[in-house]
């Protein structure tokens, strides 16, 4: 620690190089903290659980190739046959697919004449839909067999019993969300009774603010286009996809609009977030590399400049360890000053971003870990130049230059 004073004094004599170093560390820290925060933010939304049995669910969007009045019976026939395929756990029909970008949203209110309290996504299907998604019940019960209804379109308008997600229940009743079971709430102004609460399920749009708000209705819709949701036994997915397609294509006039596993749906849904977070990680990688190179170069420079001084110190009895310690400590001091400035500018930048782009601000623990890793990076980069410095021969002090 007794080196500290000379270090600070020598900063003054070497002001421009030191300032440059400090500035570099400060900028690195600013970008590092903000970029990691943004990347983590993206990762977090990608990592959110959809509530589905993601590995084992796939969907087929197809038509019902019969006249309109026969569609309902065609739908039942399809469902019965799909359920009978080997490897299928549950096959169901749904009015939409989570995260697929195509779906319905409804207004939700707790009072009949209130405008609305919040919005929610909606899926309607037969009684199997709950199990075909593979979602979990946290309160109340599943639909009773007698509650299943039929509609041609807009099943949410005829539903009587519904299930809602916990997140929606919490937004309506906060802490007392479990009380929602048995209560009547108003969906697009129509009174509907909540029979159960689902742990997690996501609406159709991944970037929607209330993506976790979902209403599930026991209403089968036999529209021109239907979505079959099929949950298979583990490992059976590709086989079932083939046999389901073969079955469906055995009807004349059948059009397969889309067949996708839920994992594909999710990858597509978050392709923007994925790309953005990968870019950010690329920036972070480049940043660390450039900074490490910079610190390395600067340390070399300051050591070459002080070759003679090092020689004198060695000649006067300083050990190799003391020389190394000096440069490591100097690096630490400069990094710390840089980080101190960096913390301020990181907060400024983070606030600027959050004002301009409505993002959150960087939490404090990012600053802490950012500090640790920046100092670590600095120490690693200075190690080799410091080692080289310690190997200078004391005899160098006797030479001019």
């Amino acid at each position, binding site marked *: 620690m007794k080196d500290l004073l000379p270090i600070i004094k020598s900063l003054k004599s070497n002001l*421009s*190089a030191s300032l*440059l*170093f400090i*500035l*570099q560390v400060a*900028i*690195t820290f*600013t*970008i590092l903290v*903000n*970029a990691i925060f*943004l990347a983590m933010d993206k990762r977090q939304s990608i990592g959110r659980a959809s509530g589905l049995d993601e590995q084992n669910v796939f969907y087929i*969007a197809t038509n019902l190739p019969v006249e*309109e009045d026969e569609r309902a019976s065609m739908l039942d026939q399809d469902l019965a046959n799909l359920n009978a395929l080997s490897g299928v756990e549950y096959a169901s029909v749904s009015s939409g697919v989570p995260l697929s*970008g*195509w779906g319905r949203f409804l*207004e939700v209110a707790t009072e009949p004449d209130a*405008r*609305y309290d919040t919005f929610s996504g909606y899926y309607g299907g037969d009684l199997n839909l709950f199990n075909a998604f593979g979602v979990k019940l946290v309160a109340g019960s599943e639909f009773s067999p007698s509650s299943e209804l039929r509609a*041609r*379109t*807009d099943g949410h308008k005829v539903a009587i019993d519904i299930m809602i997600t916990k997140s929606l229940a919490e937004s309506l009743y906060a802490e007392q969300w479990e009380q929602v079971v048995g209560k009547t709430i108003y969906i697009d102004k129509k009174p509907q009774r909540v029979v159960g609460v689902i742990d997690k399920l996501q609406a159709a749009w991944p970037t929607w603010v209330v993506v976790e708000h979902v209403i599930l209705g026991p209403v089968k819709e036999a*529209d*021109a*286009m239907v979505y079959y949701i099929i949950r298979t036994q583990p490992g059976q997915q590709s086989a079932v996809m083939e046999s389901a397609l073969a079955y469906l294509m055995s009807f004349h006039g059948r*059009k*397969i*609009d*889309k067949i996708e596993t839920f994992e594909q749906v999710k990858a*597509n849904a978050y*392709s*923007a977030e*994925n*790309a*953005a977070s*990968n*870019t*950010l990680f690329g*920036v972070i990688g*480049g*940043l660390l590399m*450039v*900074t490490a*190179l*910079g610190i390395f*170069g*600067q340390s*070399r*420079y300051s050591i*070459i*400049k002080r070759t003679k001084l090092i020689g004198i110190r060695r000649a006067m009895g300083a050990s190799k360890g003391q020389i190394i310690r000096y440069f490591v400590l100097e690096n630490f001091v400069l990094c710390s000053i840089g980080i101190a400035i960096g913390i301020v500018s990181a907060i400024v*930048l983070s606030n600027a*971003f959050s004002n*301009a*782009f*409505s*993002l959150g601000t960087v939490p404090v623990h990012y600053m802490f870990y950012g500090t640790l890793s920046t100092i670590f990076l600095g120490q690693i980069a200075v190690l080799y130049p410091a080692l080289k410095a310690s190997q200078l021969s004391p005899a160098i002090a006797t030479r*001019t*230059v």
Partner: protein
Amino acid sequence: MGIYYTKLAMLSLWKTRYMSLLAIIIIAVGIAATMTTYTINYMMTKDPIPSKSDSLFLVRINNWSPDVIYGNEDEEHAPIYMAVQDAVNLIRHDKAQAQIPIAGFKDMLKLPTQDAVDAKMTFVRSSTRDFFSSFDVPFLYGSPWPQGSDKSGEQVAVISKKLNDQLFAGKNSVGQVVELGGHQLTVVGVLDDWSILPRFYGESTRAFKGPRDVFVPFQTQLNLELWSPNVQAFECWKEADNASVEAFWASECIWVYFWVELHNELEKDAYMDFLESYVEQQKALGRFQRPMLNELQSPAEYLKEREAYSSDSEIAVWLAICFFALCLLNAMSIIMTKFQSKAGEVALRRAVGASSVDLIQQYMIETGIIGLFGGLFGLLLSQVCLMLSSQLYTHLSKDIMAMSAQLMVVTVLLSIVSSLIFGLFPIVKAIRVQPATQLKSL
């Protein structure tokens, strides 16, 4: 003198070649990061159609339920799209320079000679012939369908170059027939390569995807009752009378975007007057029970209101600029190290009479050359980065990841100018030596 200084600069660069190379690489990395993100952001937010941005307008009329405000907003705005009947009426009145309904559907497309299994699900855009002239769409073969086809709803199609390559091996296919969902359509035109970014005329969520591959007259879609429930977003405040497509066409369900081309304020005012009289007339028929909120909205305003632009690309630019600043500081310290060893040379030059301005000139040529090489290498790197981005950003059209010649020049200039500026400090520092003391130590 310039040539001599350049020679000296080259010699000096070679003498400290590793350090020079390092400076060049670091500048190049910074330039590449900045220009890659800037290009993407620039392409995403640029004016999609500069020659027409003042003359194209989205027509918004307030057709919604008498009981609630559309979209449940606090401030009432007319919906972005309209019902089929209004689109048809506005086309029939023909009060604008060009009238472009934007509708669509999807269906199975194949050649009449192909088997049903080879048919591919294809997105189809339906509009009028004005679509092609108003949006400056280039044709490779043939032309837009004639006006008569818009009126009668003839079974004709314009196809993209890509589709023409797939179906007809790139040959002139005008007069050939394609089969779309069982309907035979005659090809009247083939588009040349065409992209329009951001693609403002349809759903804002798809503004950065390429245009569709098949175009048919709007009236043809109506006549043939071609409707896919999961292609065009639609909203209904009143249910259609029955489930048929015909009833849907006649319903109050809104889903057709309607653009017009109006060349000056006079035409705009005249069109607003026309819209007012049209809505009044419909009010008399019992429709349009809400306050009149007619609006003509420009592409830029529309995209902004629909929040089509993602803030990610803008954030990336800001981060990249910070990164570039860091790279420049880094390069600056390398150049400083480089010039450190020049003290003797500087002292000698000063002693034999060179002014400090002479020396600054000489060394600026050297930093300028570093900037030039950094810029060229950075340009190369940014092309690689853009290529990687087009692999990574699968949700965006590939056309976004292309740098214009203008941007390329800007890239190199930016590199040179910033190297000169950031190199100035090391130069000034280097030439501030005292010739006498320095010479003594030689």
